[in-house]
């Protein structure tokens, strides 16, 4: 990843910033561990006993926005990373709208693809081991 000169954000960059802000706001406002939301379980985990790839992400978001970093990392390290990446992207996009002429350029090469795959697998193993009864 490198920082390069860039114009105003694209529609997709702006939309992702909006989505990230809305999700972080929802994680702040909605009580995930109280009824009604606490009654909803992952159907994949209910059926198989194993977590799905996204299990723990919502709790990671919930703890991350409240500053409980340890609990967030315990729920899902990748979810925590995603929450911080979302916050960083939303903030950076706001700055670009304000005139910041720089943006990160990420090349989606083979190395990045493998890094994503390994991160997903490692996160799933972590969550599976941690939540296994």
């Amino acid at each position, binding site marked *: 990843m490198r920082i390069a000169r860039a114009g105003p954000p*694209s*529609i*997709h960059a702006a*939309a*992702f910033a*909006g*989505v990230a802000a*809305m*999700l972080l706001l*929802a994680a702040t406002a*909605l009580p*995930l561990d109280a009824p*009604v*939301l606490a*009654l*909803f*379980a*992952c*159907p*994949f985990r209910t059926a198989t006993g194993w977590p*799905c*790839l*996204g*299990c723990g*992400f*919502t709790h990671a978001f919930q703890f991350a926005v409240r500053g409980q970093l340890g609990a967030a990392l315990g729920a899902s390290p990748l979810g925590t990373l995603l929450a911080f990446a979302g916050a960083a992207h939303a903030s950076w996009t706001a700055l670009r709208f304000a005139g910041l002429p720089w943006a990160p350029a990420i*090349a*989606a*090469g*083979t190395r*990045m*693809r493998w890094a*994503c*795959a390994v991160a*997903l697998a490692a996160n799933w193993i972590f969550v599976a081991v941690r939540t296994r009864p």
Partner: protein
Amino acid sequence: MGEVAIARVAWKLPKRTVRALLDVLEGGVLARCPSCHNTFSTERTGRQICPVCGKPLVVPEPQAGPPTAELVSEPQGTPWERRSELGFWQGWAQTMQQALLEPGRLFASARLDRAGAQLGFAILTTSVFWAIGQILERLLLRGSTDRMRELFGALSQNPDVAQMMQRMFEVQSRANSPAAVLALAALTPAFTFVLLYVSAGITHVVAAVLGQAKRGFPATFAACAYACAPLVLLAVPACGSIVGVIWLVVLTGIGMKVTHRISTGGAAASVLVPYFVLCCLLFLAVGASALALRNAAGVP
């Protein structure tokens, strides 16, 4: 390092015939990267770096004589993207017709630089019919709630259970109030926007990890946006949503195959794997909607 395809560029002006680029811009050629399949313009031949994916490639010398290579042209756009010339309703109707009956043709004509139009199509189509479906469902299911309450009340001899059931039905009745239904219907564009981008983002990440994201996020987004066309079935109470969502998955697969120019297997994998990821998120979205309704109804 691969040698790229090369074509002389056509320069088309309104009411003029297509002419070779060498007549207009001396030395400029369009080259297609063998790695990412993106087309870019270059002023020189030989070894260079693809400006899109950054991989090295070689642009060969153009052949002398009259141009024989095929002309590289941008797709003309879907009817919705050309609604300024076709008209709003005609553009929407033709896009729906192509999405449901000729999806390959629709996705092949989609322009990747028209993200705003694609977003507008998805939000308009999904949210309007979703809102209609919610209102119809509340109207049609209103009578059955009273019957269910009587049935459960009669079945349960335990006063605590009967009380809990009564409370559940009260919550449901308040959520079915006209104000709550209209409030939820008004929020559907926001829900659609978030779900569309979350779905497109996850699909693209999976496609990228599998090496199938050949033409970048705009291609994935175009596939996901036009795949929302069958969600008009959300207006049909009960079974409409199930049929609509299954059709959406199939259309997204076709869209990924055409817009990214990948194999059927790669497209199927890119589309189906995210549903394991979305498993949790989908249930959270349903739960969040239920909580919003509960709060709107004023239940503590």
